[in-house]
């Protein structure tokens, strides 16, 4: 009995350590639950490359407070959105727009009422968004970083969420 108890205890300790390890892995964000990298992609012909102001410019263009890219050709911006509630939209709201869903909805209502401008068109998949962005010189949108390597587009900046 004296010799068996330590083994049982040791088994319990090992099991506890394994459980704690798994929990820590989940909490710290392993491959499945950790931050995901996203990329804001633009048309490959877009000459805008100011990293310092990129996030703010994208925010202004997406919200339609600004209409032209500050690049050589002054391309008219054509933002593309992602489905409401999608991981891409949540990440873009939190890290680039700095707004909540409700704040964004109020912004669009105000803009619609005052100017008739409507929110950007929503695109369902990364690949389709990349195709749209490749089609329009002023096109841009957010995709998962591993989907950013497509023909006719390039990465303006990346962020994690």
């Amino acid at each position, binding site marked *: 009995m004296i010799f068996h108890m330590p083994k049982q205890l040791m088994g319990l300790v090992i099991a506890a350590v394994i459980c704690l390890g798994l929990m820590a892995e989940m909490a710290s964000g392993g491959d499945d639950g950790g931050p995901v990298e996203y990329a804001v992609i633009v048309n490959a012909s877009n000459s805008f490359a100011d990293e310092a102001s990129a996030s703010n410019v994208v925010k202004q263009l997406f919200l339609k407070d600004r209409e032209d890219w500050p690049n050589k050709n002054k391309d008219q911006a054509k933002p593309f959105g992602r489905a409401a509630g999608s991981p891409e939209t949540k990440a873009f709201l939190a890290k680039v727009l700095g707004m909540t869903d409700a704040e964004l909805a109020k912004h669009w209502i105000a803009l*619609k009422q005052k100017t008739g401008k409507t929110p950007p068109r929503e695109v369902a998949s990364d690949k389709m968004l990349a195709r749209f962005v490749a089609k329009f010189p002023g096109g841009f949108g957010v995709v998962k970083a591993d989907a950013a390597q497509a023909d006719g587009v390039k990465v303006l900046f990346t962020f994690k969420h």
Partner: protein
Amino acid sequence: MFQRSYFHSGSWAVALPLLLLAGVQPVSASESISADEVTELRQQLADSNALIGSLNQRVQTLENGQPSGGGLSPSDEARIAALEDMFLDMDERVGTRGLVQAFDAISIDIGGFLTQSLTVVKGGGSSDASFNNTQFELLIAAQITEEVSFFVAQGFLREADVDFTTPSMPFFRKSAVRDPLIISWANYKHSDAVQVRVGRFVTPQGIINIEHFPPVLLDINQPMFLRPFSGNTIFPNFLSGAQVHGKFFLGEGGEDVLSYVVFSGAFTGSDADDFISGGRVQLVLGDSGFTVGGNFTHGHRTAMPGSLGNMSIVPGGSLTTNDYNVGGADLLYDKGAILWKTEYFYSGEQGNEDRTAFYTQPGYRVNDKWIVFYRYDYLDPGQGLEQSTEHMVGFNFLPVSTVRIRAVYIRKEFKGTDDEADILQLSTTFSF
């Protein structure tokens, strides 16, 4: 397991001929095999096994990317599922219905809103109540070319105006049906810095007049200097004419936004040849939440006496004929939970009594659905009329972003007669 045993036997299938070629024939030809030949055969066998292992690995890799049965990879399946969802969404929206197309436009968007209010008003000598305002506005926006856009707001209103001709005896007039063309403009965009707008537009002065529409206002009763609707108490709420406007993005990263507008036009409640001109400069100070604005208007008023406007102490037209110069400043703070608007206007009336307006309206966003606010509102309308002050408290409830439910209490004070009135108003606005 099956694959392993298959390729295990397969290795023998390949190795056996090799053995026959390399090993069996020499056995029959000679009785002894040299040590070098054995080593060579072993090497060949090892190479063969390595090749088989490599092929085995490659087959497994291909099988992992392609499910059994020759189906699609998970990424392709996800992509097709997204396309199917999109197709179903489109089919649900369109179905067998006919498609609407614009005559000549890249795109056309239609929206609008409906506002209904219930108002209870109590003066020193009488009280009255009415579902006094039903307001439906249809908004249409069209993108004609990449540079030219069009926007129209057509109102369909049923209104019973609150009449304060005798401040102690407020009452609701009989309902009037109105269908004003509220806004109708075309906009040419040369760049962000230069755009030209022609038609009928909201006079770009101050904060609330530009916001204008009930779906975004905490209270459907705009401050007193903007009453009555379509009036000209300080400056005209609307003009028919032209304006040039634009934006400049300043500072590092273009975070500060300087915008301007200059305009000229005619007010429908005045003589047609009374030109009214002015401008506005506005600076948004990055992410600080602060926006400051300066305003100027010059115009001519022609006396067109009429009855008092809705909840107003002035008529829609002016009681005096004179030139005037309006100067104004406004300050907006909009960040986090705080939404605070303040505007001040002073109108120098040549040969007549000057006019002054001021309000400040702090609001607090309790959360995404609830907003509480207060407004202090002062108006000295000149024209020989008495001053008035309003204290307003209220809340907004937004169950969803497109529905706004309001309740406001207004304490209205008439300086000249020392009369007071209490107003309680409930209103809802549904927008789409």
